[in-house]
């Protein structure tokens, strides 16, 4: 019978032996060495049945297929745009995936997205050597005009979105802002008034700082009502 050395929601550090025995299975952020399941990262332990996983608390964004991300145009080529996602790798947005509108091959691509423009896009493919292909065909994928972008730790994005989007839709409703959350930890906030934007920003920062506490949705609701 295996032995579990940690509890759910404990903090793990690299090299920590989380469990011993073949009864436990290593998942994300862990590996097996002989009988032991060992953490590779600083993070929160999550034990569900036999599966042990460590959710990282820090680190850069690693691109994943299907993620919606916010990026900045850093280069324009013959065939598309290069987008910076904030991680170690640049992504490519090719001409044919750049818009649901028709873009002529001979057109000046800077007309559509120019240097420094912020875009919301989706990752369609990540190769083994971390070549990232983006697409902007899809609901809500567009060039971001106005508003501002705030940055949070990528591992906290799920908490900001909330279960089935509950957290973020509450912030949207109560501040009247338009918000797009990128999985890479970049969040676009645009409101009619600067005060609204400031309020939404403050709420998101609060979620980031208190991301491990229980009953966070109620706390944020209270905070937004008071303001």
């Amino acid at each position, binding site marked *: 019978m295996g032995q579990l050395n940690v509890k759910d929601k404990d903090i793990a550090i*690299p*090299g920590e032996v989380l469990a011993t025995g073949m009864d436990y299975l290593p998942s994300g952020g862990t590996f097996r060495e002989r009988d032991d399941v060992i953490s590779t990262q600083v993070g929160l332990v999550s034990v569900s049945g036999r599966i042990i996983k460590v959710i990282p608390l820090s680190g850069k964004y690693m691109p994943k297929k299907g993620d919606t991300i916010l990026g900045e145009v850093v280069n324009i080529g013959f065939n598309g745009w290069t987008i910076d996602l904030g991680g*170690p790798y640049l992504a490519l947005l090719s001409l044919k995936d750049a818009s649901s509108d028709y873009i002529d091959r001979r057109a000046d691509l800077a007309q559509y997205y120019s240097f420094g423009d912020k875009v919301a896009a989706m990752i369609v493919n990540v190769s083994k050597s971390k070549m990232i292909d983006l697409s902007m065909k899809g609901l809500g994928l567009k060039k971001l005009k106005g508003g501002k972008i705030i940055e949070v730790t990528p591992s906290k994005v799920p908490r900001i979105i909330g279960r089935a989007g509950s957290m973020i839709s509450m912030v949207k409703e109560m501040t009247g802002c338009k918000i797009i959350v990128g999985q890479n930890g970049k969040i676009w906030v645009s409101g009619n008034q600067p005060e609204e934007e400031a309020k939404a920003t403050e709420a998101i920062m609060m979620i980031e700082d208190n991301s491990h506490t229980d009953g966070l949705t109620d706390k944020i609701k209270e905070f937004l009502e008071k303001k």
Partner: protein
Amino acid sequence: MAYTKRLDGRKFDEPREIEAKVGVIKRADGSAMFRIGKTLAVAAVYGPRNLYPKFMQNPEKGILRCNYDMFSFSVPERKRPGPTRRSQEISLVTQGALLPALNLEEYPNAVVDVFVEIIQADSGTRCAGICAASMALADAGIPMKDLVASISVGKVGDKIVVDLNKEEEDYEGGSTDIPVAVMPRNNEITLLQLDGDITSDEIKEALNQAKKACQQIYKIQRDALKEKYGGMKNE
């Protein structure tokens, strides 16, 4: 000449007072401070990030780049700023000591930069630097098989001692300094340097003591990391 009592009154297998803190540099992706006695090292980690010049990129895995340096005021006689032959060598051995603990397969073509700065030097600076760097790497969220703990052991006069200070290193009865870095989970040695005279029996004894001391250091590193991230949980 017999060395019967240590110059600063420690036991022979007792390291100096240790203090560790994670997250000391705000703009770095990961950072840590490590103090052992009067030696104080600060490490900052940036990355994984794009690596240029491009010919240095490795498409199979990410690379680690370490840079060790001492501040001008870290030693009694002002050190001329900038890289030296000594600092280049220590950068290289630091890299060698940390690399076995890292898992960089996930970051092809990228680089992880580690900067170690010695703010105050009183012997054992490379060991303090390695300890700080390994905590900073964990803080930056780089996947690691284990932390790395490091300490110097050696022979002062005729005695095997742990964690030599500057006075002991300069002991007139002769002294030998052996910096050791260990991955504490398996007691795997990742750094071993030796300059001086020592017998093979003595070196075995010294290494055993180094491993024991590294377990103590590991506990302090672990607590420092848990303190930073545990605080986030309980707030």
